[in-house]
């Protein structure tokens, strides 16, 4: 494997201002890591990967029309494969290595320097997770980098070219996800240093994906026949199965973000479950009252809204705070996924913005309201949280827009009307389910 020469590495680092060496991974004796923490984080990583494949894949696939089910599944699966490679090659380095307040450094290109040395009994650990091998930390973060672009796909379901989607996701994850992850989660990142609280990715994952989804829905335009033709979900069984996988997997997402098998992870698990149950009930109740029947699609959407909203708060709030976050997110996301969307008439097909964007925004701000100092070690600040959320939203919106416009000019974004009518499964992938 090729390593960057010392000279090249130094030159690149110098271009980005001197990194603080305290923020670099350290080579330590294998005896210093915690077996319990490592076991839990290995498990969490698997749980979060499971959230994308097949959790999110199924959640979305059940909601589209039958002629597009395979192409929707394909999006999640292909994004998983692609982001895996990008993250290993460059994403992890630029996100989590010290650099400057806006982007990390090149210390881990191709994961060079991330070491496990059997005979010397040494391995590297990342300063954010000193009790587990760096490889596990990198992998855990990879699963977040994977699910974020996969979420965006919900906004442009049933009409985007697969090739353009892959190009867009590759660029987006490097130019939007990686910097934002660095700002919020890496020591030295400007939001990290300003005290923006985002325990497990309410801003980095959900606001990011939700805003990108909204922009994509607006740039790509509505599906052919939207508003006139029936576009009902073709199999809500898949959607419910997917949502259930998301719920269970989210324990890896939130409780795993404690990066330890400890009391904080326990509190995060409690907060996650409580908020989600409350949000599911809240959406169900709102729909029952407003429309007369509680639907399956409604209750699972409520659960997901709660999961999203509690994500930034999970390691900072207690059960009462979690209940409040669940209740508010269940009700507000019900409104944003139904009324707001129809009022403003954009075709955010699977409510990437309505649930993830709005839920993430609510969660980020409410973290400032409900953070309990004894649990998370910090007081919340609604002002700081709002600044973090807005800065991310604005940056994401602008860059997403530019990327989409460039790709549209070079290779087009949408399939032809004929392909859209025929169905993407056959048109793009040459496959169908009967």
């Amino acid at each position, binding site marked *: 494997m090729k390593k960057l020469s010392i000279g090249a590495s130094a030159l690149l680092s110098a271009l980005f201002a001197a990194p603080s060496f305290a923020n670099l991974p350290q080579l330590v004796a294998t005896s210093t890591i915690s077996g319990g923490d490592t076991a839990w984080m290995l498990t969490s990583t698997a749980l979060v990967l499971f959230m994308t494949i097949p959790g999110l894949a199924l959640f979305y696939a059940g909601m589209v029309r039958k002629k597009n089910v395979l192409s929707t599944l394909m999006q999640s699966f292909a994004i998983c494969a692609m982001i895996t490679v990008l993250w290993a090659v460059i994403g992890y380095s630029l996100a989590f290595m010290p650099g400057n307040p806006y982007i990390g450094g090149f210390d881990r290109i191709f994961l060079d320097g991330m070491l496990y040395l059997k005979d010397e009994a040494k391995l590297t650990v990342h300063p954010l997770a000193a009790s587990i091998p760096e490889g596990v930390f990198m992998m855990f973060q990879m699963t977040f980098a994977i699910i974020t672009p996969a979420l965006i796909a919900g906004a442009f379901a049933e009409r985007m070219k697969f090739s353009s989607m892959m190009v867009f996701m590759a660029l987006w994850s490097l130019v939007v996800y990686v910097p934002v992850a660095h700002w919020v989660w890496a020591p030295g990142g400007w939001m990290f240093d300003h005290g923006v609280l985002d325990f497990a990715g309410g801003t980095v994952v959900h606001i990011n994906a939700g805003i990108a989804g909204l922009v994509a829905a607006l740039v790509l335009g509505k599906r052919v026949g939207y508003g006139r033709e*029936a*576009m*009902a*979900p073709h199999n809500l069984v898949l959607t419910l199965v997917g949502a259930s996988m998301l719920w269970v997997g989210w324990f890896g997402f939130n409780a795993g973000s404690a990066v330890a098998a400890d009391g904080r992870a326990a509190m995060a698990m409690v907060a996650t479950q409580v908020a989600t149950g409350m949000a599911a009930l809240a959406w169900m109740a709102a729909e029952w009252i407003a*429309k007369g*029947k509680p*639907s399956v*699609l*409604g209750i699972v*959407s409520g659960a997901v809204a709660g999961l999203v909203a509690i994500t930034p708060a999970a390691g900072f709030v207690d059960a009462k705070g979690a209940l409040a976050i669940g209740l508010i997110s269940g009700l507000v996301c019900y409104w944003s*996924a*139904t*009324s707001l*969307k*129809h009022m403003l008439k954009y075709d955010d097909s699977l*409510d990437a913005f*309505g649930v993830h964007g709005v839920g993430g925004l609510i969660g980020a701000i409410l973290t400032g309201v409900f953070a309990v100092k004894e649990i998370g070690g910090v007081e919340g600040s609604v002002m700081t949280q709002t600044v973090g959320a807005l800065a991310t939203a604005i940056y994401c919106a602008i860059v997403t827009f530019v990327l989409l416009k460039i790709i549209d000019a070079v290779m087009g974004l949408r399939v032809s009307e004929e392909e859209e009518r025929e169905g993407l499964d056959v048109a793009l992938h040459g496959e169908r389910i009967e």
Partner: protein
Amino acid sequence: MKLVSAIIKPFKLDEVREALSAIGVQGITVTEVKGFGRQKGHTELYRGAEYVVDFLPKVKLEIAIANELLDQVVEAIESAARTGKIGDGKIFVMDLEQVVRIRTGETGADAV
């Protein structure tokens, strides 16, 4: 020979089949179809998007019979399939020009 085609409510299928068996009809083809006449559809709601579903599931029967059985068959289907509520369906009677039993090659009345 006649071809009797009937559109009925799906849950009436067993009753109609038994009624036809009772009068000696030995063969029947069944297809699942969708349709509407004067029966209105229902509304489905998905995250705030309302869909009026016009096409309701029905079952279509096709029976090839000798002319002599026609009145009995129509009567049997009609009374077995009727609920008295809107959407009960319709019976269509068509002239059948030729029938062939594939296994034996019999034609006409012998094949019905």
